[in-house]
């Protein structure tokens, strides 16, 4: 290799390293504090790793707080939302990708505009709508609200995946004897699995993180989700950093796992969309 090229490669790897460190350092710090024993927390200051580690914070969070309930609630809400949204978005994304119909333009416009709503504005009206239905303080209510919020973006995501699949395949299936819906289910959907994975992961992560509506629609611990739990925890034990960060690490795990599984499909899906546009 020429020295110039070597230098360039070195700079490239160096820059990448800076990014990786920047991305991971805050998460690393979270983990570090969560395993630092209380008596070392103040004395060891900015040390990169404590001289002694402990899991007592995790123990406390899991055994002596409502976190297991929060965790379960969040899993249910995020999982159900992800599934509902993916089903709805597959259908509507398919409609946008494969049909040309009069209202298409308006549907796209509506979905784009919903992305601009200041969601705070919707809290009171939604609360008033859900309350007589008994859907406040319920996980079902959260699933409905989260599903609505996430359907527009998920629709565009699925549409870009469908756009990447040649129309010939449905036509062949329809000539083979399938209705369009059967072709969609048996031929197109199986080919969109990466897209479905990406959508599932995206929506799961979004629902896992949602704070505002979880805070407003839920009162009491029974139906509280992880973000709400963590926030109450923070305001209640605001000096017990070890326990808070242990809770934070736990909150991080499912979302990050999901994300690591689907992130490569995300780029793929957007590439397919970009090729078309």
């Amino acid at each position, binding site marked *: 290799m020429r020295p110039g090229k070597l230098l360039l490669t070195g700079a490239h790897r160096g820059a990448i390293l800076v990014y990786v460190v920047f991305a991971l350092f805050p998460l690393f*710090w979270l983990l570090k504090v969560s395993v630092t024993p209380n008596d070392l927390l103040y004395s060891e200051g900015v040390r990169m790793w404590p001289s002694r580690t402990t899991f007592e914070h995790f123990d406390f969070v899991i055994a002596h707080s409502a976190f297991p309930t929060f965790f379960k609630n969040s899993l249910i809400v995020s999982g159900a939302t992800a599934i509902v949204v993916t089903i709805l978005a597959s259908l509507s994304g398919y*409609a946008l990708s494969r049909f040309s119909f009069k209202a298409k333009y308006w549907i796209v416009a509506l979905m784009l505009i919903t992305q601009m709503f200041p969601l705070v*504005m919707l809290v*009171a009206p939604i609360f008033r709508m859900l309350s007589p239905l008994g859907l406040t303080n319920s996980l079902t209510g959260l699933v409905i609200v989260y599903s609505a*919020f996430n359907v527009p973006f998920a629709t565009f995501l699925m549409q870009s995946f469908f756009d990447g699949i040649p129309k010939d395949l449905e036509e062949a299936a329809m000539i083979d004897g399938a209705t369009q819906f059967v072709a969609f289910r048996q031929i197109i959907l199986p080919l969109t699995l990466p897209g479905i994975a990406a959508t599932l992961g995206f929506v799961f992560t979004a629902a896992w993180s949602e704070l505002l509506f979880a805070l407003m629609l839920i009162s009491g611990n029974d139906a509280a989700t992880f*973000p709400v739990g963590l926030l109450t925890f923070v305001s209640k034990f605001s000096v017990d950093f070890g326990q808070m960060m242990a809770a934070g690490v736990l909150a991080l795990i499912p979302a990050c796992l999901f994300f690591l599984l689907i*992130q490569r499909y995300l780029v793929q899906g957007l*590439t397919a969309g970009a090729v078309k546009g």
Partner: protein
Amino acid sequence: MMHQSMKQNRPPLRKRIADASEPYLYSAPALILIVAVMLVPLVVGISYAFRDIQLLNPFSGGFIGLDHFRALSQDDAFFGALRNTLWWTGASVFFQFTFGLILALLLDKPFYGRGLVQALVFLPWAVPSFLAGLNWAWLFNPVIGPLPHWLYALGLLDEPHNILSDPHLAMWGPIVANVWWGIPFFAITLLAALQAIPRDLYEAASIDGAGPVQRFMSITLPFLAPTIAITVLLRTVWISNFADLIVVMTNGGPADRTQIVASYIFTQAFKRLDFGYASAIALVLLVLLLVYSMLIVLLRQTMLNKG
């Protein structure tokens, strides 16, 4: 029988209805949900802007016309929040985009372990926003976080104190957290767009004698331009609405120095329980964002027409 012998060319009514309704059947479930849970509440929310809605006041609820907007025009805190929103949105989008683009360019080159690196640098996106806020608040906390000490060591701070409680620096806290959290979004979209550029274009340009800078200017940028335009637009709108980090990290303080319009609405609604006033502010924000989007779209249209 009659109908068949008439050889009419229009298909039978039933088939026409079935054909025309098919796309609507596919999109109906999603649409119903969006209309019921977003559009209807939005309309109701807009009506709140013209009513006196206070959650704890049983006598509230009356129609008060433009009173909220009159009050708003006198509200210094609102105008302060508007200025802060510009600052917050501008700085966040600028840094997210710049670092996102650089990251996308770095990742577009094949190297050993690219898949792993990609997964790691995109990870912040998966971190729940409130947790990202808490995490950065902790990092800025001199008791348990290293950042104040490092900034002090670098000579950027006089003493290792928490910048989140310093009125002059506080806004940088949420912005840094937002940049950390938002780089992956830009990087992912731009990387996808980069990978869609046909490779032979670069080869052709190299053969024609274009250097790396010229190749970037004459191929990469024009190809990325539509993606950049749309992501910057969406992101700007989204970030101006995005109050989570600020609410978690500073709650608008100190002295309203980090109060943006979105967090101001939040405060009005949930601290003072004045939903009518909060809705009026939200409506103003929505209109501003719509106007902004329209301007960008128009600008893009005129630029396209010229090109």
